[in-house]
């Protein structure tokens, strides 16, 4: 049996005070490969903390986090960076595209750090952009794209390294109704292709489109 993509065991993250704040309290979570999970909760419920932990940008105070079977708490910062590069893809609410680099350059960027074979980088970036329907925008600067197109570039950037898990943090937070629908449809296609997706949102409508959903309330997680 292969290890699940993500496994959280009794994870607590507290921020030293005063007053001490426990953003996550004893969370247990297993995400098998190929799953499509949404994490929903109001602001202040610990969603961002959850994303930072899952994305190896933060460490749990108590508890264990295994990513693809690897216990992450004993890793050095450089090993965690390498793991991020290889295993995870990020999509952010604010896109985080480099405004002075072309769309293609933006998608190539993570492959620089992930150790993708040099010759494969550009073809893969082109393929990823074709995949999200932006084959005709490769030489554009992000500033000339619409919000939905920018988010699709970000998705292409996240999947170009062929990560094990794609983490999306409020991916539709800056988008209108129509483009939200387009992005969600894109996620569903990627999921159908076998990508493991974890989507963090406060939008119930978005969350319901995932295969399963957990709700964070005051740092505690419950299956919906």
């Amino acid at each position, binding site marked *: 049996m292969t290890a699940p993509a993500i496994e959280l065991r009794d994870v607590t993250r507290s921020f030293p005070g005063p007053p001490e704040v426990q953003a996550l309290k004893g969370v247990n979570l297993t995400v098998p490969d190929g799953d499509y999970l949404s994490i929903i909760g109001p602001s202040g419920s610990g969603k*961002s903390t959850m994303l*930072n932990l899952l994305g190896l*940008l933060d460490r749990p105070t108590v508890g264990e986090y295994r990513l693809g079977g690897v216990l992450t708490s004993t890793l050095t910062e450089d090993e965690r960076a*390498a793991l991020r590069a290889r295993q995870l893809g990020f999509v952010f609410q604010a896109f985080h595209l480099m405004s002075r680099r072309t769309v293609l*350059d933006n998608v190539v960027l993570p492959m620089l*750090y992930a150790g993708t*074979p040099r010759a494969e980088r550009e073809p893969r970036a082109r393929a990823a952009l074709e995949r999200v329907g932006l084959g005709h925008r490769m030489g554009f600067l992000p500033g000339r794209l619409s919000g939905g197109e920018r988010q699709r570039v970000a998705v292409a950037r996240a999947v170009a390294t062929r990560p094990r898990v794609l983490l999306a943090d409020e991916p539709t937070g800056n988008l209108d109704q129509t483009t939200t629908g387009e992005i969600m449809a894109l996620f569903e296609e990627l999921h159908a292709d076998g990508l493991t997706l974890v989507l963090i949102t406060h939008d119930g409508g978005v969350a319901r489109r995932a295969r399963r959903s957990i709700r964070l309330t005051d740092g505690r997680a419950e299956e919906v």
Partner: protein
Amino acid sequence: MRRIRRPSPPPRPAVVEKVPAADRFTLADLLGEATADIGSRPGRLVTTIVGTVLGVAALIATIGFAQTAAGQIARQFDAAAATSLVVTPATAQTGGSGGSGGSTVATGVLPWDAVERMERLAGVDSAALLAELSLPEATVTAVPVNDPSQAPPAPPALYAASAELLDAVGGHVATGRFFDSGHDARGDRVVVLGARAATRLGIERVDNQPSVFVDGIAYAVLGIVDRTDVRAELLDAVIMPTGTARDDVGLSTPGDLQARIAVGTGPQLSEQAPLTLAPDEPDSLQVQAPSARSQLGQAVQTDVNGVFVILSVIVLLAGGVGITSVTMLSVVERTGEIGLRRAVGATARQIAGQFVAESVVIGLLGGLIGAAVGVFGVVVISVARGWAPVVDPWVALGGIVLGAVLGLLAGGLPARRAARIEPVEALRGGT
């Protein structure tokens, strides 16, 4: 109990499989990422590097002017010495063991067409053969009469020379003329007198066609030389054409070669001359040529204007502070980008490296432009003043390196700051 030694941790299995070296994030990747944004904001780039440009330019101009002035002074002082080249056959001691009765004999010999050969070399303005005739028994007088009551005066030195000698030693004829190549070829019995030799022989003018008698043979005096730039001993001598000397006194070898050369060609010509004149045995000839730079020039060069150097260094420091502050600003602006890079797998070291590389490239650019401006300034002002501009190429190269080092130092602080940015914080913001 004190623990002496901590056991080393057991080796852990590699968390992430190794990436082949060719696919890792290399220095080339780092430079690519660091330079990708440099040109995207020309206005800011200009404000960033202007201090470095001015500092490096001022420093190079200061040193360049000092060198130019030194070169200028040296040129005025030793113009004659810097243009005189003498080729002599090598000599060796023979005979006398124990230091007595030994004599020096020439081990090499110049060809008779040495003048033609030398004048083919670049940098040789003119060349002439010059041989001292040692005729210990010879008498040189202006009158053919042997006056037994008069103590025999020491005869003036006797030289054989080719017609180009006047030009080669920078001589000036006070009266009459110098012999020409026709006299030389025909072996005409003519001589030219040095001014002091003429006085001793009692000859003041040549329009009455005076003669001197060398070993009883009459030679027509063509002219009197009163000034030479080099070989001042010629003023005490009687000079006859080489061809005449061969016919009359049995001159067997052409002696020395005296040449006037362009300034600065000494080192090059001292290598070329022996090869040209004796290709089969270049070691048999010795060359006395001026070195590239005179002692005087060296002395003056060290006297670089201290005040200007200090000013330039201050401007340079300001340039460094400029790079630091603009790069710092850029770090703050690009917080989101830094967070993203960290999230997609860049290590803190790679982020720091990127900003250091960026400021080194900016510094290098500043050094490059500054060096060009400095050298250009020296050239323009020198040309306007009619000086020969002198800038040591190492000074210009040093200016470029200085810019890069400045960028390296200036980039340290922003790079530390960039490396410390927490991706969590960085990704929260916009852009």
